[in-house]
């Protein structure tokens, strides 16, 4: 079995988004109940970063359709192969749902999202408090689900790397100079 790596573009997008998503989840969880003086500034950055995550996720999905992922080890039980697929789809869904529900929430609350330089994002929906209630609940629940998925994803990846040593972890952590299609 040859050592297979994800393409460099995929590894770059994965790790960039990993850092952003984990930071955003931690920032979101810490500001949501805060009355502190840093909250308003954190919220501004949360919105800008969320938009950047949305753009990067779309680029990542387009990029992902260009290549075939490295094969999982042949000896992996069927349920684990299935779990890996479900996990991947769930992670992509969470990455899309979080920024989209966040953006729509602002429209439902009637709050313009103002970007640096004074640009105002278009509203995706009209002000509507019930819709805000729904979107705010989705944003909160999916954030917790996302944290659970990330813990599961990291746990599974580390098990491949540290328990099985089967090259799966290395296909994403491999040095940037190593292998893979561009």
């Amino acid at each position, binding site marked *: *079995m040859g050592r297979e790596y994800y393409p460099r573009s995929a590894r770059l997008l994965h790790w960039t988004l990993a850092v952003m998503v984990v930071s955003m*989840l*931690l*920032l979101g*969880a*810490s*500001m*949501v*109940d*805060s*009355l*502190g*003086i*840093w*909250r*308003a500034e954190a*919220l501004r950055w949360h919105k800008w970063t969320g938009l950047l995550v949305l753009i990067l996720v779309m680029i990542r999905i387009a990029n992902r359709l260009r290549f075939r992922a490295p094969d999982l*080890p042949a*000896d992996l039980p069927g349920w684990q192969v299935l779990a890996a697929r479900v996990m991947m789809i769930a992670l992509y869904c969470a990455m899309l749902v979080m920024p989209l529900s966040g953006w729509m929430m602002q429209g439902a*609350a*009637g*709050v*313009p999202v*103002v970007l640096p330089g*004074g640009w*105002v994002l278009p509203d995706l929906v009209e*002000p*509507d*408090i*019930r819709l*805000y*209630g*729904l979107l*705010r*609940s989705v944003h909160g629940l999916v954030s917790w689900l996302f*944290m659970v998925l*990330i*813990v599961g994803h*990291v*746990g599974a990846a*580390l*098990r491949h790397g*540290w*328990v*099985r*040593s*089967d*090259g799966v972890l290395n296909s994403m952590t491999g040095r940037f100079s190593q292998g893979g299609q561009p």
Partner: protein
Amino acid sequence: MKPAPVHNPRGWIKVGMAIALLAGLFLSARFIMGGFPGAAMFIDRIQGGEQTRFPGYRRAHAKGVCIFGRFEASGALSALSRAPLFRQGASVPLLGRFATADGDPTAPDLRVPVRSLALAFTQPDGQQWRTAMNTPPVFPVSSPAEFYELAALMKPDPATGKPDMSKLGQFFATHPESAAMGEWQRAYRPSASFATEIYHSINAFLLVDGEGRQHPVRWQVEPIDAARADAPADGPPDFLFSELADRLQQGPIRFRLVFVVAAPGDPVDDPTRPWPASRPRIDAGTITLDRTTPQQGGACDQITYDPLVLVDGIRPSADPILQARGGAYAESYRRRAIEMLEGAQ
């Protein structure tokens, strides 16, 4: 390379430690940065427990009416703020709300000691400025923790239906910063109309001019040519709201939007301390309000008047009470939004 055996206890221990660390980080985020009090604790306190008696209503200033109108700028403020809405000739739509300050939407109007006017100004570029103003010009305390303490004392005692005045008196005696608020309360005579009150920003903000210089200000909305009468000692429960409806039958009501500019050394980050009356006043323009709709289902009920929703050209000060309003309004809004989703009207 052959895969290592699946039974690899050292590997499993490392994996377990790594995911425990990550999960611990996620679980503790809310508490590490949270501070005291948190937004949820604070809203629990002002609504008097974990359950609200009035689902779907604002947790404070619950009884209100939506009001519509326009703001026409005089141009006088454009030297201090680069916001387009203050340029001479600018005219922007307003979505506002008059309210009485109690958390009980059935409270009789004349029994509530504080009244408020909230306004949302929408610029042609889509940016919005929201302000929630009150009849007092100052706030009794200068930190969220002290307000949390005071909010408990202001709750009526279930036995008497009134707050325990001796405990409140004790609080004010040990918080000398509340003196200006006390002075206002003794001098204030409620008027017989929402249209004849003065509404204050309470907190200070920073205007940003075209060169990026910052100018600390407070603002207030003052009636124009409205004959003022004192409120009667008692009256129908909806006294103020009926009066407003009657008055609007005669024509629109008008206010002046006045900015008060701080001098160097004036306290900017402390809402308990008024500035000297001699500070320069700038008339930024005229507010004309001409039409109301009931708040239930109305446009003003869809939004929250978070005073940290600002346009480019106005920045928040570092006043901890102002900054806390952002989190508290958001939590009140989240709760009533979910209650309305679940069927509250």
